[in-house]
C-alpha cells in the first residue's frame, strides 16, 4: 500500500492507529478510521474522481458532504454494487472497493468527453429541437444513443442481497442535525427530561465544529462537541442516531429518517440490516441542519481542484488531508477568509486571496497578512485552467488587469444557503432574506423550529444560542420545564457576505449545476427562449434535477436568471425542495416486504396436511389454497383435476373452504340488517336453515354473494367470497354504524376462528355418519338441503351446513381452527372406505361451472344482479342497499349482456375465458361485440370444455351459435349458447339419499 502523500502526520479526527485499505478504479490505497472515501482519496492525492453527466468533463470533489455533485462512484461489487454513491458520505471501511462511473474506457480517458466539443449543439433543450427526422429513427437510433450516453452509474441488475429494517419511534423533540445548534438544542431539551432523538447524517456528531479550529469555552470546538455528545449519551431520555439523515417531513409530525446501519462494513453482520428506515413521530422538531456553501460561476469552475472553502477546511482540519499544495481563495464572504489561516496552518501555500468586495473587515486582512497571502480586493476569477487537475487561475483585478496564478487548489466561498429543504416538504416555499442574501424558511411546519445556520444565523454565538432556545422551547411546548443551558463563550468572527453569482467576463464554460452540466449560457438560452419562470428554467435546463437536487446550484441559477431578466431574486422565485432530502435506497422503503414476504401469507389450519398430501397451492388474495393434489404418474394438472372432479361426482371428495369469509351477526335486529344488505329476505329465514344471498353496492351493481345461516333467533352466520371478505365486513360495519346505528345488531369476523371443509359427493352423508356417529342425525328429513346445525363433538363445537357448490349431496363441516388439522385427518380416515379424495380450487371451480354458479369472474364489479340471472331475487317488498340505483336505465337495459352457458360446437375444441362473442359471419369489430366468456372448464363428466359468459339477450338465444373470438391466443372457437347448468339441471343429485 502506498503512503498517503497528502496526509499530514498529525491533527484531524482520524484514528491513525487503525489503517484501512481500499481501492478506487482497481488501484489500492490506504486510509484511516474516521475517514470518508473522499477524504481518503484526497489524502492519497487523487483529484480526478468522476465525469459529468452530459459533457463527461473531468471532475473532482466540490464539497465534503451530502450536497456533493461530482464525486459519485459505484461502490462495492457484484450484487452489492451501488451506483451514484457520494464518496463524500461514505465512511471508509477496510476492503472498500469503488469505481468511477459514466466514463469509457477509463476515468482519465473518456471517449464521450468528445461531447464537450459538440457542446454548442448540446445546449439546454437541444433534443426538443432535433432528432425528429426521419421519424422511425428515433426509437431505433437516436433514442438508444441518448439513453446509452445518459444515466450515471450502473445497477447490478442482481437481487439486492442485503436486508432493510423499518422501525417506528416516538419522541417529544426531534433534533435534526448535530452541529453546534443541534447539540445545544438536544442538550436544552434533554436536560429538561423530554424524550429527545438527535439525528445527524454524519457518522460523527459535531457538524462544522469538526471542521473548524474555533474554540468554545476555551476548548477546541471539536472537543467541546465531543463533551456535549458524551453528556447526551448519558441521558436516558436522549437517543442518539448518528449516520441517520432525516429525509422527509410528513403529515402529523411524522418524519422519515434513514440510518446507515452497516454501510461502514464490507458486508452487514449476521441478522443486521444494511439500513434502517425510521418513521419518527415527534411532537416538536428542531431543524439544525446547518447551511451549504455556494460556489461562484466562472470559466472552468468545474476543474478538479476547485472546491468550496468549507470543504477545503473540512479536508484540512478534520481529516488532516491537504487537497493541494498551492491554493487560491476566491471568496465573497468573510467566512471564506477563515480558510486562509487553516491552509497556512496545514502548510499549504496561498497564492492569492481574491475577493470581489472592495473592502473587507480589517481583521480579515490581518489573517491574510499572517499567512503571507497576496490579497486582491475588487477582483474576480475569470478562468480556471488545467483539465484533469487545476493548474492555474486567471484573476481580473479591480484594475481590470488579468493575471495568471499557478495553483492546484481553489477554495471558493460565496456565502451559504441555509439547509432548509425539509421546511418545504409541505409545499411552502422559502423567502429571500436580503440581509444574508439567502432563502430562509417562511412558514414553519407545525411543531418545527429552525436554529443555527439553518435559520440564517452564521455567527457561532448566535448559532449556539438559537439552538439552546429552540431546544428549550420545544421541551416546554411538550410539557417539560427547561432551563436554558448557559451559552458557552466564543470568539466573534465577522460573517458578512456579498454574493457574486456569476463572473460575467468568464472564459470557457461556467458551470451552475455541476452534475447536470448546466452552464450560465444555458440559463441565458432558457431566458431567451421564454423559459423564465423558475420552474421552467429548471425543467428546460435540468438545473437542480441531479442527484444533489441543486443543493449547490439552484439558488445560483435563479440569481443568474434574475440578473438576466432584470427581476429581483424574490420575484424570480425559487423551486421547491421535495422529499427525500437525500436520495434513499428503494430497498429501505420496502424493508422486509420483499420477495415472498411482499404481503403476509395466510395459511389455513389444514395447510400442513395439504402439503403432506402433495397439494400445489395457489394465491387467493393473501391466502394460499390447495389448487389440486397431484398423484404420481399423472401427466398434467388437467388429469389430476379430472380425477378429483370425477371422484366427487362418483364418490366423495373433500375441499378446504376455510378461507371463505365468515361473519357472526348477532342481536335482535340481525335479520333486519341482513334484509337491508341483501337483495333477498333473511329475516324470514327459519332457525336451522341457510339461504343464498346477493349483495349490491349502493350504485346498484353486484358486490358479493354467499350463504347465510341462521343459528338462533338472534344469530346469523354470513359467508362471503374469499376475495371480498374484508370488503363485506367493512360494508356491514358501515351499514350498522353509519346508516342504521339505531339497529341492535353486532357483527364480527369469525373467518379465522373456523376451519371449514366441504364434503361433497354421493357418499358424503355416509362419510360424515362414519365420523359423527350418533352425535347428529343426518337423515334427509332431519337434516335437509340448506339445513344447518351446531353440536358438540369430540370435545369441541362443530358447525354443519348442508350446502352445495358442486351440485352434489354436500356438507360443510366447521370446527375451531385449532382442530382443523385434526378434522381433515379424521374426515379422510372416515372416508377411506369410500375412496375419499381431497380436491382443490381447480376441481371446485370445474364443478361450479358445471352447475352454472357465479363466482369472482362473474362478480367482477361490472355486472348487475339482473345480468347474472338474479333479477327476480331482488325483493320488491323492502329497501336494500343498491335497490334504487339498480333501476337506472343503463343497468336495466335489455341490451346488457346476460349470463348463460356455452359449449364448443366441435367438442374437441378448447374454450378460453376472455374470448369475446361475435355473431357468426360478422366482422370482428367493437360494434359487433356481444359479450365475453367469463369462466371455462373442461368437464370430465361431459367430456368437453364448457364455459360461462355474458352475451346480449343470452337466455333468449339458447341453441344459437356464435363465435368465441380470441385472437390474442389464436383461439377462435364456434360455440353454442346453452343453459349455464351443464350437469344435473333438475338438481336431483343434491338430494341423494
Amino acid at each position: 500500500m502506498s503512503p498517503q502523500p497528502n496526509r499530514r502526520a498529525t491533527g484531524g479526527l482520524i484514528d491513525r492507529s487503525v489503517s484501512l485499505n481500499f481501492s478506487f478504479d482497481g488501484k489500492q490505497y490506504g486510509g484511516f478510521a474516521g475517514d470518508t472515501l473522499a477524504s481518503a482519496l484526497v489524502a492519497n492525492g487523487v483529484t480526478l474522481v468522476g465525469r459529468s453527466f452530459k459533457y463527461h468533463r473531468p471532475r473532482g470533489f466540490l464539497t465534503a458532504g451530502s450536497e456533493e455533485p461530482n464525486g459519485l462512484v459505484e461502490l462495492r461489487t457484484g450484487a452489492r454494487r451501488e451506483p451514484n454513491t457520494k464518496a463524500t458520505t461514505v465512511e471508509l471501511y477496510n476492503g472498500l472497493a469503488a469505481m468511477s462511473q459514466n466514463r469509457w474506457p477509463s476515468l482519465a480517458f473518456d471517449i464521450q468527453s468528445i461531447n464537450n466539443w459538440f457542446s454548442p449543439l448540446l445546449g439546454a433543450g437541444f433534443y426538443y429541437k432535433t432528432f425528429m427526422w426521419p421519424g422511425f429513427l428515433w426509437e431505433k437510433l437516436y433514442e438508444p444513443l441518448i439513453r446509452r450516453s445518459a444515466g450515471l452509474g450502473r445497477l447490478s441488475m442482481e437481487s439486492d442481497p442485503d436486508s432493510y429494517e423499518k422501525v417506528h419511534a416516538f419522541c417529544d423533540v426531534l433534533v435534526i442535525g448535530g452541529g453546534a445548534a443541534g447539540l445545544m438544542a438536544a442538550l436544552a431539551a434533554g436536560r429538561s427530561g423530554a424524550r429527545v432523538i438527535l439525528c445527524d447524517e454524519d457518522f460523527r456528531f459535531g457538524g462544522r465544529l469538526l471542521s473548524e479550529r474555533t474554540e468554545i469555552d476555551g476548548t477546541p470546538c471539536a472537543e467541546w462537541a465531543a463533551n456535549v455528545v458524551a453528556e447526551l449519551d448519558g441521558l436516558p431520555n436522549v437517543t442518539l442516531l448518528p449516520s441517520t439523515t432525516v429525509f422527509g417531513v410528513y403529515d402529523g409530525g411524522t418524519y422519515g429518517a434513514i440510518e446507515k446501519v452497516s454501510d461502514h462494513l464490507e458486508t452487514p453482520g449476521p441478522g443486521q440490516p444494511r439500513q434502517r428506515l425510521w418513521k419518527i413521530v415527534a411532537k416538536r422538531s428542531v431543524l439544525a441542519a446547518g447551511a451549504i456553501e455556494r460556489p461562484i460561476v466562472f470559466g472552468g469552475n468545474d476543474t478538479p481542484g476547485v472546491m468550496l472553502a468549507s470543504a477545503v477546511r473540512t479536508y484540512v482540519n478534520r481529516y488532516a488531508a491537504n487537497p493541494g499544495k498551492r491554493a487560491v481563495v476566491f471568496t465573497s464572504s468573510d467566512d471564506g477568509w477563515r480558510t486562509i489561516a487553516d491552509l497556512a496552518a496545514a502548510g499549504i501555500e496561498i497564492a492569492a486571496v481574491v475577493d470581489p468586495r472592495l473592502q473587507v473587515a480589517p481583521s480579515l486582512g490581518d489573517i491574510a497578512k499572517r499567512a503571507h497571502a497576496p490579497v486582491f480586493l475588487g477582483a474576480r476569477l475569470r478562468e480556471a485552467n488545467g483539465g484533469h487537475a487545476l493548474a492555474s487561475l486567471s484573476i481580473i483585478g479591480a484594475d481590470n488587469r488579468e493575471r495568471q496564478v499557478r495553483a492546484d487548489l481553489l477554495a471558493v466561498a460565496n456565502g451559504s444557503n441555509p439547509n432548509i429543504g425539509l421546511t418545504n416538504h409541505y409545499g411552502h416555499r422559502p423567502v429571500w432574506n436580503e440581509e444574508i442574501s439567502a432563502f430562509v424558511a417562511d412558514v414553519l411546519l407545525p411543531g418545527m423550529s429552525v436554529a443555527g445556520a439553518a435559520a440564517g444565523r452564521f455567527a457561532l454565538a448566535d448559532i449556539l444560542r438559537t439552538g439552546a432556545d429552540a431546544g428549550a422551547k420545544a421541551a416546554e411546548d411538550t410539557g417539560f420545564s427547561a432551563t436554558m443551558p448557559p451559552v458557552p463563550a466564543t470568539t466573534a468572527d465577522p460573517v458578512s457576505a456579498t454574493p457574486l453569482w456569476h463572473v460575467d467576463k468568464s472564459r470557457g464554460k461556467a458551470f451552475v449545476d455541476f452534475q447536470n452540466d448546466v452552464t450560465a449560457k444555458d440559463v441565458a438560452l432558457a431566458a431567451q427562449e421564454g423559459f423564465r419562470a423558475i420552474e421552467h428554467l429548471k425543467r428546460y435546463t435540468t438545473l437542480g434535477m441531479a442527484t444533489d437536487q441543486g443543493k449547490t446550484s439552484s439558488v445560483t441559477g435563479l440569481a443568474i436568471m434574475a440578473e438576466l431578466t432584470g427581476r429581483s431574486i424574490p420575484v424570480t422565485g425559487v423551486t421547491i425542495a421535495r422529499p427525500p432530502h437525500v436520495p434513499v435506497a428503494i430497498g429501505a422503503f420496502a424493508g422486509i416486504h420483499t420477495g415472498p414476504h411482499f404481503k403476509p401469507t395466510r395459511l389455513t389450519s389444514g395447510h400442513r396436511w395439504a402439503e403432506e398430501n402433495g397439494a400445489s397451492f395457489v394465491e387467493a388474495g393473501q391466502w394460499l389454497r390447495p389448487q389440486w393434489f397431484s398423484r404420481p404418474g399423472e401427466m398434467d394438472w388437467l388429469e389430476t383435476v379430472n380425477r378429483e372432479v370425477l371422484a366427487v361426482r362418483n364418490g366423495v371428495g373433500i375441499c378446504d373452504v376455510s378461507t371463505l369469509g365468515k361473519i357472526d351477526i348477532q342481536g335482535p335486529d340481525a335479520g333486519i340488517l341482513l334484509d337491508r344488505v341483501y337483495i333477498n329476505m333473511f329475516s324470514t329465514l327459519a332457525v336451522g336453515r341457510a339461504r343464498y344471498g346477493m349483495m349490491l353496492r349502493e350504485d346498484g351493481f353486484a358486490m358479493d354473494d354467499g350463504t347465510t345461516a341462521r343459528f338462533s333467533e338472534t344469530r346469523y352466520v354470513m359467508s362471503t367470497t374469499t376475495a371480498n371478505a374484508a370488503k363485506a365486513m367493512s360494508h356491514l360495519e358501515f351499514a350498522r354504524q353509519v346508516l342504521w346505528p339505531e339497529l341492535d345488531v353486532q357483527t364480527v369476523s369469525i373467518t379465522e376462528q373456523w376451519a371449514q371443509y366441504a364434503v361433497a359427493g354421493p357418499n358424503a352423508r355416509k362419510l360424515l355418519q362414519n365420523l359423527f356417529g350418533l352425535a347428529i342425525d343426518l337423515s334427509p328429513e332431519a337434516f335437509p338441503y340448506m339445513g344447518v346445525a351446531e353440536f358438540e363433538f369430540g370435545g369441541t363445537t362443530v358447525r354443519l351446513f348442508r350446502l352445495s357448490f358442486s351440485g352434489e349431496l354436500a356438507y360443510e363441516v366447521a370446527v375451531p381452527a385449532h382442530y382443523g388439522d385434526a378434522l381433515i385427518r379424521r374426515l379422510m380416515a372416515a372416508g377411506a372406505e369410500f375412496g375419499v379424495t381431497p380436491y382443490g380450487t381447480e376441481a371446485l371451480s370445474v364443478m361450479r361451472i358445471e352447475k352454472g354458479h357465479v363466482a369472482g369472474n362473474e362478480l367482477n364489479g361490472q355486472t348487475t344482479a339482473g345480468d347474472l340471472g338474479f333479477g327476480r331475487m331482488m325483493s320488491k317488498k323492502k329497501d336494500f342497499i343498491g335497490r334504487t340505483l339498480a333501476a337506472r336505465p343503463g343497468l336495466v337495459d335489455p341490451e346488457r349482456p346476460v349470463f348463460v352457458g356455452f359449449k364448443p360446437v366441435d367438442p374437441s375444441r378448447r374454450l378460453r375465458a376472455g374470448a369475446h362473442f361475435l355473431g357468426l359471419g360478422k366482422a370482428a369489430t367493437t360494434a359487433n361485440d356481444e359479450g365475453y366468456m367469463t369462466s371455462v372448464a373442461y368437464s370430465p363428466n361431459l367430456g368437453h370444455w364448457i364455459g360461462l359468459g355474458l352475451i346480449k339477450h343470452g337466455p333468449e338465444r339458447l341453441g344459437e351459435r356464435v363465435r368465441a373470438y380470441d385472437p390474442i391466443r389464436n383461439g377462435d372457437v364456434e360455440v353454442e349458447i346453452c343453459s349455464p347448468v351443464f350437469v344435473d339441471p333438475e338438481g336431483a343429485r343434491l338430494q341423494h339419499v
Partner: protein
Amino acid sequence: MSELFAPLPAFETAFPISDGLTIEERSGIGLATVMIRKDQSAALVKRVRSLYGINLPASPSRAGTDDLAFIGIGPGVWLAAGSSSSGFTSMLANDLEGLASVSDQSSGYAVLRLSGPKARTLLQKGVPIDLHPSVFRPEKAAVTVIAHIGCMLWQTDEGAFEVAVFRSMAGSFHHWLAASAAI
C-alpha cells in the same frame, strides 16, 4: 376431551432467542369477542363486575387477570381472554345473555407473550403507536398493525406484552419477529 381432536399450536417454528427477550405462545387459552347490545352498557358493566369482579374498561386497556381478562378493543367491544378455551365462550354467552353478543375466537388468534427488558424495544420497532412506559402503561391495550399484520396487544404487568394476530398469519408474523429480534 380431545381424544378425537387434538389442537395444534399456531406457530410451527421456534422463536428467536436473545438475551433479555422471551417469546412463548399462549396456547389453549379462551378468547371471545364481547359486543355490547344496544343500550345495555350500564347493565353489562354491572353484570361483569358482579360476576367476575372486573371493571369493564371503557378504553383500550385490559382489566382482569390471566384467568379472566377483558381487553377493550373497540367502542363497546372487548376481547375476553381466559386461561382455558374449554367452555369459555359458552360461559360468557350464558353469563352475559341479553347484554352482549359473544363470539368464540379461541382459535381465531395466535397469542404470544413477549417478556424481558427487550420486549418493548422489539415491539416498538413494529407498532406505529408509542410504547414508551410513560405512555403505554401496564394494562394498556391497542389494536394496531405490525408489518401489515393486524394485531391486538396489551401489557400484562410491567414489561410483559401479549400480542394476538390472526392465526393464519402466524407464519408471516414469525418472519417479522425473526427479522426484528436482532436488537
